[in-house]
């Protein structure tokens, strides 16, 4: 660099300094606008995301209620057995055959479920992004090794592996459980992220960054990841959905060890202890079902509109920034290779 680096300083940098200066406060406001205000506006503008966020906030509320102990804990013979939902407002969702408040049961395990879902989603997508970007961007031997390993994990059907692992490891901690449930979920997702990264790697702006000597981690962070974010977010929700389904399914089968009753266990009891046979106990089955489906539904709704948050075109349109003329693609593109 040395000598040539200074050559630019000889050019006339004619610009008024005042227009350029930015105070710390301005920068902070700018940061807030970019990372908080704009995403919020875009997310709220989409009907589906809006409903989804509302649904999710109900679950958040339930978790808070449990954490601060604002609702009674479940216990046998709290009330008359098999009260119907809304029969008395004291037990709005009804009771089980042994007189346990169903709402208390649901609220009791909400923090547990949310933690587990979060852990499953973060683990699955986190590992997949890590593996996929490294494998796709680095290529060569690293890619071959990672691809072979994920091929192997893809070849094992998830649930049976989880069942065997659950028998062996007896996971009770919600975070550990989330990880176990999605133990090989990352493999398939990692492969598809890899193929996306492969095509992004070939794009001109990555080459330009490499030409400037930008380090690989910075290229991945600044140029690759933002472009796969919409895909990652959608898949985070799908992984979370898988975690809920698998957890509840396995609790329902009685394969997972449990300490208290959670949604899956409640479903199991409802199923085993008569919910299946008579109409009287049907709500016992229905309440955990609604809890599960509601959470998943909210997550999926949010994800449906979430990819737009990462789309700069939507961002500029919805936050009222000027839009340049729409261009027809009539330009010539010639001379490959």
């Amino acid at each position: 660099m040395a000598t040539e680096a200074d050559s630019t300083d000889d050019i006339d940098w004619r610009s008024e300094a005042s227009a350029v200066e930015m105070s710390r406060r301005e920068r902070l406001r700018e940061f807030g606008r970019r990372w908080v205000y704009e995403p919020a506006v875009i997310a709220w503008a989409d009907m589906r995301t809006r409903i989804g966020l509302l649904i999710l906030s109900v679950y958040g509320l339930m978790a808070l209620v449990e954490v601060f102990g604002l609702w009674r804990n479940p216990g046998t013979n709290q009330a008359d057995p098999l009260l119907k939902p809304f029969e008395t407002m004291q037990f709005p969702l009804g009771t089980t055959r042994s007189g346990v408040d169903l709402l208390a049961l649901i609220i009791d395990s909400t923090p547990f479920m949310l933690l587990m879902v979060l852990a499953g989603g973060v683990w699955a997508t986190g590992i997949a992004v890590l593996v996929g970007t490294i494998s796709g961007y680095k290529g060569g031997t690293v890619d071959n090794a990672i691809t072979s390993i994920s091929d192997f994990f893809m070849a094992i059907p998830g649930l049976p592996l989880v069942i065997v692992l659950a028998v062996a490891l007896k996971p009770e901690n919600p975070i550990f459980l989330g990880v176990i449930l999605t133990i090989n979920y990352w493999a398939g997702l990692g492969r598809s992220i890899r193929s996306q990264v492969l095509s992004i790697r070939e794009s001109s702006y990555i080459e330009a960054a490499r030409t400037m000597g930008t380090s690989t981690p910075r290229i991945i962070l600044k140029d690759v990841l933002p472009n796969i974010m919409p895909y990652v977010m959608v898949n985070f929700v799908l992984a979370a959905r898988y975690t809920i389904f698998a957890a509840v399914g396995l609790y329902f089968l009685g394969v997972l060890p449990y300490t208290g009753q959670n949604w899956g266990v409640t479903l199991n009891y409802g199923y085993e202890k008569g919910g299946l046979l008579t109409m009287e106990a049907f709500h016992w089955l229905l309440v955990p079902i609604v809890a599960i489906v509601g959470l998943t539904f909210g997550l999926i709704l949010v994800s449906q509109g979430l990819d737009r948050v990462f789309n700069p075109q939507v961002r500029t349109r919805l936050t009222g920034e000027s839009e340049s003329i729409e261009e027809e693609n009539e330009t010539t593109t010639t001379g490959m290779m």
Partner: protein
Amino acid sequence: MSTDSAAGNRAASDEGVDDPILEIDDANVTYNDGETYVLNDASVSIDRREILGIVGESGSGKSMFASALLDAVPDPGVLSGQIRYHRNDGSTVDVLELSDEELRQFRWEEVSMVFQGAMSSFNPTMKIRTHFTETLKTHDRSVSEGIDFARGLLENLYLEPDRVLDSYPHELSGGMQQRALIALSMVLNPEVLVMDEPTAALDLLMQRSILQLLDDLQSMYDLTIVFITHDLPLVASLADRMAIIYAFQFAEIGPRDSIIGDSAHPYTRKLLNATPNIDAPLVEMQPIDGEGPAPVNVPSGCRFHPRCSLATEKCRAEDPQLDVFDEFDTDHRAACHHWQEAREEIPLNAGKASDWYDASDMADRTTNTQQSKTDGQPLLSLTNVDVHFTKEQGLLERFSGDPDTVRAVDDVSLDIQEQDLVCLLGESGCGKTTLGKTMIGLQRPTGGSVEYRGQDIWTADGSDSTISHDEIRSALQIIHQDPGSALNPNRRIVDILSEPLRHTHPNASTNECRSRIYSLLERVGMTPPEDFIDRYPHQLSGGEQQRVVLARALLMNPNAILADEAISAVDVSLRIEIMDLMLELQSEFDTSFLFISHDLSNARYFAEHGDGRIAVMYLGEIVEIGSAERLIHDPRHPYTEVLRWATPNLDLDAMEADDPPIREIDVPDPVDPPSGCRFHTRCPVAREVCRKEQPELQEINDGDGKAACFREHPDHEYWDSEPVEGAQRRNEPPN
């Protein structure tokens, strides 16, 4: 000819058309419930068996006109007006009144269409043959007869019928696909062929070859062709009449010679002057300021007035009608209030080409300049560089025989001085981009060495290196072909431009960086910078994007910049401006430029202005190198002559295109390049010896530069050798 009463409205149609096949009256295409016009008051007649060239910038509504001819305007656009089609038997139909079934038959049987992207016009999961047979079947034609007809078409397009028919689209090269698509559009033997940018995605030589074939097809099959393009000189060589579209309206229409030689609309005249071509004197090429308007904010009055130097109050207030303006020239219509002033005050450059080139003088001059530059150590030095790619292959092939190797660059040596300018010129697939990337250290050569000021760039940071790898890395920068994909869509301009400053000024404060970015943005013509700094790339026009890319490269303080087809994605009217900007900045920033192009006229503009050289590449080798003047006026390699032929010019006398000086249209497979001289399979003057022996790149006599052809040596055995099949037997050794 036409018998129905509607033909009475002659004022709108062209006087010069005696036997119209299509008459378009007052055609409008609107969106948003008639709020936005993307085609406005188009009235034009198309003569039977003529070639009508329609020229317009991107987004000017020319594609809408093409779709309107087939009543195929994309939803939710609404087409109104009248489009009368006169059949051969004298009957007339209004295309817009046809029933669905009639329209289905009308399309492709009477009027057919060729789109820009051949790759996207074919179903990727279907063989080419199926495309033909299903078209024949659905129009109740005999499949065997139709396929025979298609074979003839394909042969006339220099394709092997069986190979093409049994291929999937992705198995053919771009040029082959485009020709196959032309054959597909003609398989029902239509009367009219509407072509919407049919060659835009191809390189210049292929474009010109296809145009040549179109000319032949037109007479062979009695076709009427409507050829729509942004490339004025390209269509000028083919068209009988030409029409210019500006901002969704026809600005001018008339016989080709009148439009090129005596145009009356300021836009046409400026467009002609803005087009780089190889004949006009360089100094007079002028860009048009500004950009065409978007459909939502079309200026009132004459739509061109904001960009017109002759605009008056009248132009701002009153929209001029497209009409005959000169009673002695009734074929020629233009929409301008001031056509006389336009003709007087905007002189045309083309045709002024004079005999200003004097070979010996030029040779002296350029040798001198070359001499002065070759003093001292070169900035970049390539010695016997090879870049070979091994094709992906499987387990079994690995045991049997040699792997398939693509020789993208083969044994190239080239020196680039400080503040030098070199243009690499060649067809797609000739290895020019690979060579360019090898020069700036983005592609590792498989053989030979690349040195930066004497330091091999791939061993920098080794034990005995004098210049660090980081220094070399930031000294060699790139500008990509498509500015849209060269900018990360998720980052704002300020973030994009801060990135190079992280490398060059790692300790600079945020405000210091901003001020640097601001001043450079002003320098590249983006004023005021604060309007642009917080935008995302998609909020900029193509020209603005390319300026940002240029600014990004310059912020690295590079010593050499590779510009890979850097202007081909920019609108024609802006190309000169961007090229001028690059040249200005080159001297301002003391960098060398490597400019890659397939277009001799662009290369010439660069090389002549920057006092540089043009290197012609063919199949991985440099076959000729020299100054632009010498290359254009005294090409020594037959391939350079081919490229010279392929470059459209605006000289009316030279326009009647002669046959291409080439025997094959398609480039041979680089996996298995021809033996001897690689060009011998296509060379018009190849002889037997060219098959066996490979010519060396050597200094040429009485001229600057080097060439690799036996014809440079008067006593070479070439002159006694037999011509190969198909080659001409012309020429004796010089002197």
